[in-house]
C-alpha cells in the first residue's frame, strides 16, 4: 500500500472496511483478471472509448525543435481526455463488486463527465459532487453530466471548489459505503486507489511502447507529460518504470527502459514563490516545491504551510490546480527516475496557441504545459525522439484560454476582432 514512504491509507475508520474490500477486488479483478475483468475492461475501452489512441508524428513541431516529436493522442479518447480509462475501469470494477451506485468528485468537470459517461454506459446510477463556484463556471460540463443522466450535487461549503467537493464526496461515501463505490479522479487518495488508477491508465504506456517500436523502431529517448494529480503522467510513465508491480509487458527490458527520460511538467502558475501568510501558492508545483505530508488519504508531496495547513494552489489550467500529487510520482521523483520540471501560465498559453496553429490540435490547458516544456528545454536532455502525452483536448478551455490570453502579452495569440460586430 505504499510507494517507499509515500501512500498509505489515512482515512476514517468507517471507510476502512470499504478500502479493504476494494483492495481485495483490485487484487482479484485487476491484478489477476478474475472472471475476465481485465479482458472486459480492455474490450470496452477499445470499443466504447476508442483505444488504441494514435501516436502521431508532429511534423511542424519536429521541424521547429529539430527532434522527432510524437504526440500520444489521448485527446481522441471518448470524452476528450485520458480520464475515461480510469472512470470506465472503476465503474466496471464497482459492477463486479456488486455495488449499486457510483459517486465522484469533480473540479473543472472532466472527471465528472468521464464518470457520468462510464456510468451511463454500464447502467449504474451516478452522483457527482461539484463545488457551487465550479458549477457556475463550468456550465457545459454540468450540462454534459446531466445529459448523461448523472445527478450533479453542488457543494455550497467553503469556496465551492474541488477540495470542498472531495470532502463532500468522502462524506457521502462514509454514509453509503456499503452499496456505493467512490470513483476517485486521479492517482491520489488512500491505497489501493493510486495503484489501481495507474493500472487503468497504464494502457497509455503499453500502447506507447508498442507504437514507438512499430513506428520508429525503438523506445523514445524521453517521455513528457503534464502533472497535476498525475494520472496521465503515471499512465504514460508506468511501463517505463522498472519497479511497476504491473510491469508485465513482454517486451520489457529494464536496462533499456532506464534510458528513457521521464519528465513530469507541473504548473508553475504565476510564480514558484508562496504567500505563507495568506496560505496561497500561486502555482501547483508540488513535486518541484512541495513537502511531504498527508492529504486526502495518502502521504505524498504537498503544498502546505509550516503548520501543515494545505495551501490554495493556482494554475491557469484548472485540471492541474491541486495542492497534492500522486504518491507513486512523489516516490519516482525522490528516486530520480522522474524529473520534475515546471512552466508558468504564460508559457502554457503560448504552447496552447502553438499546437493549435502549427498542428491543428487544440490541446487542453493541462496538456499545453507538457508542450511548453519542449520550448523551454533547449539543451540535449530530451534526445532525438520525444513522446508527449496529449492528455486531453482543449474544447473545454476555449473561453478560459482566450480570457487568460487577453490579459497577457502572448506573442502568438490570434486576433479575435471577428467578434467585434
Amino acid at each position: 500500500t505504499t510507494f517507499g514512504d509515500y501512500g498509505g491509507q489515512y482515512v476514517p475508520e468507517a471507510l476502512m472496511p470499504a478500502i479493504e474490500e476494494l483492495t481485495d477486488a483490485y487484487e482479484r479483478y485487476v491484478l489477476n483478471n478474475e472472471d475476465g475483468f481485465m479482458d472486459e475492461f480492455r474490450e470496452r475501452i477499445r470499443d466504447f472509448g476508442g483505444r488504441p489512441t494514435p501516436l502521431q508524428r508532429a511534423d511542424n513541431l519536429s521541424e521547429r525543435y529539430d527532434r522527432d516529436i510524437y504526440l500520444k493522442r489521448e485527446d481522441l479518447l471518448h470524452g476528450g481526455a485520458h480520464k475515461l480509462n480510469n472512470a470506465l475501469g472503476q465503474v466496471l470494477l464497482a459492477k463486479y463488486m456488486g455495488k449499486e451506485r457510483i459517486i465522484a468528485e469533480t473540479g473543472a468537470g472532466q472527471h465528472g463527465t468521464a464518470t457520468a459517461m462510464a456510468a451511463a454506459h454500464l447502467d449504474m446510477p451516478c452522483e457527482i459532487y461539484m463545488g457551487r463556484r465550479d458549477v457556475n463556471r463550468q456550465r457545459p460540463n454540468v450540462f454534459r453530466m446531466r445529459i448523461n443522466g448523472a445527478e450533479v450535487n453542488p457543494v455550497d461549503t467553503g469556496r465551492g471548489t474541488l477540495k470542498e467537493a472531495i470532502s463532500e464526496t468522502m462524506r457521502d461515501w462514509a454514509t453509503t459505503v456499503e452499496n456505493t463505490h467512490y470513483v476517485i479522479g486521479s492517482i491520489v487518495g488512500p491505497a489501493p486507489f493510486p495503484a489501481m488508477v495507474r493500472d487503468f491508465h497504464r494502457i497509455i504506456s503499453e500502447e506507447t511502447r508498442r507504437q514507438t517500436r512499430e513506428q520508429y523502431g525503438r523506445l523514445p529517448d524521453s517521455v513528457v507529460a503534464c502533472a497535476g494529480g498525475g494520472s496521465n503522467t503515471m499512465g504514460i510513465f508506468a511501463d517505463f518504470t522498472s519497479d511497476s508491480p504491473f510491469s508485465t509487458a513482454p517486451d520489457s527490458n529494464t536496462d533499456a527502459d532506464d534510458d528513457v527520460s521521464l519528465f513530469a511538467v507541473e504548473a508553475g502558475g504565476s510564480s514558484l514563490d508562496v504567500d505563507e501568510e495568506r496560505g496561497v501558492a500561486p502555482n501547483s508545483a508540488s513535486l518541484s516545491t512541495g513537502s511531504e505530508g498527508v492529504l486526502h488519504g495518502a502521504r505524498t508531496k504537498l503544498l502546505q504551510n509550516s503548520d501543515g495547513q494545505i495551501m490554495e494552489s493556482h494554475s491557469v489550467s484548472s485540471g492541474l490546480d491541486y495542492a497534492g500529487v500522486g504518491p507513486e510520482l512523489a516516490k519516482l521523483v525522490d528516486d530520480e527516475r522522474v524529473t520534475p520540471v515546471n512552466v508558468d501560465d504564460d508559457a502554457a498559453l503560448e504552447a496552447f496557441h502553438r499546437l493549435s496553429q502549427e498542428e491543428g490540435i487544440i490541446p487542453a490547458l493541462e496538456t499545453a504545459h507538457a508542450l511548453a516544456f519542449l520550448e523551454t528545454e533547449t539543451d540535449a536532455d530530451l534526445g532525438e525522439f520525444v513522446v508527449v502525452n496529449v492528455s486531453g483536448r482543449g474544447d473545454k478551455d476555449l473561453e478560459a484560454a482566450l480570457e487568460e490570453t487577453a490579459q497577457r502579452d502572448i506573442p502568438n495569440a490570434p486576433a479575435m476582432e471577428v467578434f467585434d460586430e
Partner: protein
Amino acid sequence: MSNPAIDAAFADEPAFIPYLAAGDPSYDASLEYVEALARGGADIIELGLPFSEPIAEGSTIQNAIVRSLQGGMTVGRYFEFVTDLDVDVPVVCMTYYNLIYQYGDEPGPEPFVRKAKSVGIDGFVVPDLPAEEADPLREACDEHGLDLVFIVAPTTDDERLDRLVSLSSGYLYVQARLGVTGARDDVSSETTSSLDRLAAYDIPKAVGFGIKTGEHARDIIAGGADGIIVGSALVDIIAEGTEADAPTEETAAELESLCEELKAGALEGAQ
C-alpha cells in the same frame, strides 16, 4: 497504559464529552465557550484543532473550522489556547494527522505529542488515522503518557475491532451511525447493536455522532455506553450566535445550558 485524568472521568458515572473547535469564531470568545462546557458539566473536553481539509466532518463542524481558521487559529495559537484555558477537566485534542505530522523540526508525530503534553493535553482523537497508520503516533503517545482514542464505526468488523481496542487507550469513540458528524433527531439502531458488540471489551465506550438532546443522551447511556460525545449540537449554538452577532456571554450561557441538559440525560440513563 492510559492517562489517569481520562480514566477518572469514566470512573463513577457516565462521562459527558463535549466538542468545540478551538478559536471558533475567535480566540477570546472560544475560550469562554470552552470554559462554559466545563461549567455545564463536561467530564472531558474534545478540543478541535482546525485542519484545512476536514474530510470526516459534516458541514456544521466544517463551517466551525472555517470560522476558526479565518479567525487566525494556527497550531501555535492552539497550544497557547490550551495553556490559557481555565478548566479542570482533561482535554483531548481532536485534529487531522497532517498537523500532527508536520509539527516541529523532525518528521513524525513525536514533537507534536511532546508539545501537547507540555501544555496539558491528555489525549488525541485523529479521524483520518486508522489503525493501519497509527503506530508512530501510538508510540509517541505511549512515550509521553497521553491517550490515543480510536473511532469504531458500524462498518468495523470483529477482526478490526479487536485491533482497534488493543490500540486504543482512554476510551473508544463509538461512531453511532454511518456518515459524518452532525446532530440528528433520532437514535440509530446501529448504536444499540454497536454497543452490544462492544460490551465484552474492557474499555470505556463513548458514543458520538448525532446526539443533540438530553433524551438522546439518556437512551444511549441506558443502552450501555460509558459516555456521550456531543459536537455539532453545541457548534450549532455558536454558529447561530455568530450569525446573530449575539453577545459572547449569551452564547456561552446557552452552551452551558445544553451541556447541563445532556449531562442530566446521561446521568438519568445510568440509573
